[in-house]
């Protein structure tokens, strides 16, 4: 079985050849420390400036509102803790949702232990928060609203602009984890009233271990990594020049032909969704039918368990996931599927297939041809299935 079909683009993406070529010189040749004032390092500094422009352009911010980090998780941690500690005298209340990525959720839980109060908004069956709930949750103590742009598991996109407006009205900072949105949804931080936004390179065909935090000019934010004067004194540590260059290039490529890209991916996604609905009984699409990431397909297959489904797919060369890759260390059904109101026994049978730039029609055909057989086989073994 030599076929290899990767349908886990939401977990991570390959570095594109163009991106790798852009990074390459910064390992062995232009290796100087960008903080150095003279010849060595100057190339690196310029390259970082270019990357900063590219990332800024991708989200519609000013160049000097972008700060590079060691990944999406660091950006989330920094944004939330940085705002919380810098504003704790104004209030200690944070609003988030119960379908956030763990980088947000666990940071909020940590802050609870440190004396902050956190409201975890519930989502509706499609994974969207209710704007009314948000309004009701706001108190005089609220300093931060952090709601993800698009969910990594079920692909649901929030009403970011409305959330931003409400935050703005109440003079509360609004952070959004846009790790999954970048390259898949048009992002304009000004139009959408976003104050802080996290992104990560490895979800847009850039390298792992690089991310960025956008911080609207004028916002007071505590540093998270203290030390040297890098990133205009806001994020210490010798810059991952090659990684940052790769992120810049990837961000540029991901947003250059955004509409075209989205419509191509969406077509494949809809083909897969429709195909599964047609061919397999007792399935249900998780997440929102339309406010959904263009590459996200997430189904529950009743009566079977996700891991055995994944394993079977793996055996025919198809890589998917049964929830967030980050949680695969756990045997629990994902907190996102629970939050959508799925019963445990059903949540266990979920499969996420995410489509990306290298996915072809043939890949989808292959999955549609084989998935029904796999599901059948597993159902035949299941004590829950009776037909």
């Amino acid at each position, binding site marked *: 079985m030599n076929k290899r079909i990767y349908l886990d683009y939401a977990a991570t993406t390959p570095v594109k050849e163009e991106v790798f070529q852009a990074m390459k010189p910064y390992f062995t040749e232009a290796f100087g420390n960008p903080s150095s004032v003279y010849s060595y390092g100057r190339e690196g500094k310029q390259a970082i400036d270019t990357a900063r422009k590219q990332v800024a352009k991708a989200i519609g911010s000013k160049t000097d509102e972008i700060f590079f980090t060691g990944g999406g998780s660091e950006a989330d941690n920094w944004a939330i803790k940085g705002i919380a500690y810098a504003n704790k005298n104004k209030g200690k209340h944070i609003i988030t949702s119960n379908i956030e990525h763990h980088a947000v959720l666990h940071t909020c839980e940590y802050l609870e232990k440190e004396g902050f109060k956190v409201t975890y908004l519930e989502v509706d069956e499609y994974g969207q928060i209710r704007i009314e709930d948000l309004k009701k949750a706001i108190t005089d103590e609220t300093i931060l609203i952090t709601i993800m742009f698009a969910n990594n598991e079920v692909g649901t996109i929030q009403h970011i602009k409305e959330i931003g407006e409400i935050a703005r009205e109440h003079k509360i900072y609004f952070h959004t984890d846009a790790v999954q949105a970048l390259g898949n949804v048009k992002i304009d931080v000004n139009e959408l009233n976003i104050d802080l936004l996290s992104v990560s390179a490895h979800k847009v065909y850039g390298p792992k271990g690089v991310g960025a935090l956008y911080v609207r000019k004028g916002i007071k934010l505590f540093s998270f990594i203290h030390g040297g004067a890098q990133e205009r004194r806001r994020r210490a540590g010798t810059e991952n020049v090659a990684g940052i260059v790769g992120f810049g290039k990837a961000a540029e490529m991901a947003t250059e032909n955004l509409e075209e890209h989205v419509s191509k991916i969406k077509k494949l996604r809809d083909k897969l969704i429709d195909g599964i609905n047609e061919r397999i009984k007792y399935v249900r699409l998780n997440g929102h039918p339309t406010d959904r990431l263009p590459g996200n397909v997430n189904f529950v297959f009743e009566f079977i368990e996700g891991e055995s489904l994944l394993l079977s797919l793996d055996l025919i060369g198809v890589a998917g996931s049964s929830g967030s890759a980050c949680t695969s*260390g756990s045997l629990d059904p994902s907190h996102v599927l629970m939050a959508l109101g799925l*019963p*445990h026994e059903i949540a266990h049978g979920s499969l996420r297939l995410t489509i990306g730039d290298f996915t072809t029609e043939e890949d989808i055909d292959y999955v549609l041809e084989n998935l029904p057989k796999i599901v059948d086989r597993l159902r035949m073994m299941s004590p829950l299935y009776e037909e």
Partner: protein
Amino acid sequence: MYTEKVMDHFMNPRNVGEIDNASGVGQVGNAKCGDIMKIYLDVKDGIIEDVKFKTFGCGSAIASSSVATEMIKGKTLEEALKLTNRQVVSALDGLPAPKIHCSVLAEQAIKSAILDYAQKNGLQFDELKDFNPDEDHHDHGHDHE
């Protein structure tokens, strides 16, 4: 991640199915936890003539069911009762640490089926004295509820 043995039993599971009018049926696990194992026995003269299983669960659970049924088929009930989850694990050439509980499930399902048979037939087995089929077998990380 899994051994070849596990993969073999996962892909070509032995003894999948049900037995009509089985002499004993046992079911353990909980759909909430993502694992249910059901064992059907056909017992004649204290010997397990046939055994079938149905499992809702991960790859390890399916492989454990398969190998365990193979191990007890043709054996006496007493022999079957001696089967431990460790034996199941070694028959599979090992399981990853977080998956050990799946083998426990197989041991419990068999005990549970034999208990059913014993109760129907007014028998008593020493090995089943402390066995409680409804006991939560989960000693792993699940912490829902």
